[in-house]
């Protein structure tokens, strides 16, 4: 029997070595595998290369990993945010390398790694600083730059539900980088709300086939759902809107 489920986030991230390239899914909070990142911090691997759209917010998730100086290099499209002080500090200090990649090229390079494409010509970035030094070619009247795949040793992603074969479905825009990162890593580790019985996921609606998935850990239903139905009552970070005061603040900030 194939059973890709593991019983804890510690088991899920076991064995990630120093020096590994780790893809981390998510776009902002949506689809960010927060618990797996925390487990990776706990696990202790260092000298990592992180591939992710952002480079951490506030003091949690990727930012916490960076703060522990476990990361040598970041490949991302958008490190600078209002609350990216951890990355900003390390970068200014020269303590972290950055490869800045336009978001669509980042996505396509990850997809290329998963799909066995050796390199591809993209129009994005041509004529800009970010394509400096890259090979360019005019094809059919348009200029393209050559981009190479981005592979990883490990992908940490967050999905909605899985089965024991590792088939995945996602929820709304939290899908973002999950499916392509799952295809581009040697070992793909997934956190989900629930691992359902084999056959319960409609084969028409599986987004990531289990062939791309190695380990799945179930963490229970996300707080803004109840028995599968959206109930809300949280802020953008998934924290409960506990008091009228909180609600007023959230409204003010929206």
């Amino acid at each position, binding site marked *: 029997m194939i059973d890709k489920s593991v019983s804890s986030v510690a088991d899920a991230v076991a064995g990630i070595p120093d020096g590994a390239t780790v893809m981390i899914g998510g776009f902002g909070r949506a689809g960010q595998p927060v618990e797996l990142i925390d487990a990776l911090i706990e696990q202790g691997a260092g000298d990592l290369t992180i591939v992710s759209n952002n480079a951490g917010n506030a003091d949690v998730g990727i930012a916490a990993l960076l703060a522990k100086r476990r990361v040598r290099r970041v490949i991302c499209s958008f490190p600078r945010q209002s609350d990216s002080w951890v990355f900003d500090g390390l970068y200014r200090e020269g303590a972290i390398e950055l490869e800045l990649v336009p978001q669509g090229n980042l996505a396509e390079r990850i997809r290329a790694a998963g799909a066995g494409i050796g390199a591809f010509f993209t129009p994005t*970035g041509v004529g*800009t*600083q970010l394509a400096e030094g890259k090979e360019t070619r005019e094809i059919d009247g348009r200029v393209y730059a050559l981009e190479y795949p981005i592979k990883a040793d490990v992908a940490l992603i967050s999905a909605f539900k899985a089965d024991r074969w590792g088939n995945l479905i996602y929820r709304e825009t939290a899908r973002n980088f999950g499916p392509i990162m799952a295809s581009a890593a040697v070992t793909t580790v997934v956190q989900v709300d629930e691992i359902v019985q084999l056959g319960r996921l409609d084969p028409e609606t599986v987004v990531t086939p289990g062939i791309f998935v190695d380990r799945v850990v179930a963490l229970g239903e996300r707080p803004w759902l109840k028995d599968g139905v959206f109930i809300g009552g949280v802020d953008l970070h998934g924290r409960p809107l506990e008091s009228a005061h909180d609600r007023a603040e959230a409204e003010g900030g929206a």
Partner: protein
Amino acid sequence: MTTQLSRQELAKRIASDIPEGSYVNLGIGAPTLVANDLPEDQEIILHTENGMLGMGEAPETARVDPDLVNAGKQPVTALAGASYFHHADSFGMMRGGHLDVCVLGAFQVAENGDLANWSTGALGAIPAVGGAMDLAIGAKHLYVMMDLLTKQGESKLVTTCSYPLTGLGCVSRVYTDFAVFDVTPNGFAVRELFGDNTVGELSELLTLELADETHAARA
């Protein structure tokens, strides 16, 4: 020459140029205002590059869904008819030229349609590009929405961009507080003047040659 539209007025002006049935991406910042002025009796489908078509307005606070955000990472809703997809598919949709209109902010637009909107090139600044370069080349029509002048009174329409480029020759039209400009093979053409502005005055203000296409646009 005194007429300047407010951001809201300009957003409304842009909204009125987007035909029903268009697939549209509204960039982060001022361009998102355009969504509020799209006519309610018409269907215009909003794309957000983090993986959705058919994006709806912001939810009320108690209905914020952390899984459902736009490219600015703000909470949104999904309309009936929406669809979700992953990042490679989403940017393939843009790169493949399937969107009709993209509206972006800018630091500068050059006569040849070059766009600078991702970096001020300031020394020591942390660089960040996000989807800016993909958006620049990712629609049939790229509209820029911006103030015509910097706070220091310098023209943001230029002969050649001094800021780092986002994309080459990609801008179709520029909506500013003073006027609407088309990018043509011969440089900027004034398509529409707001209030009492004139082409001559604008040309002097910007120290740029401007073709007068206000007549053609009205025809």
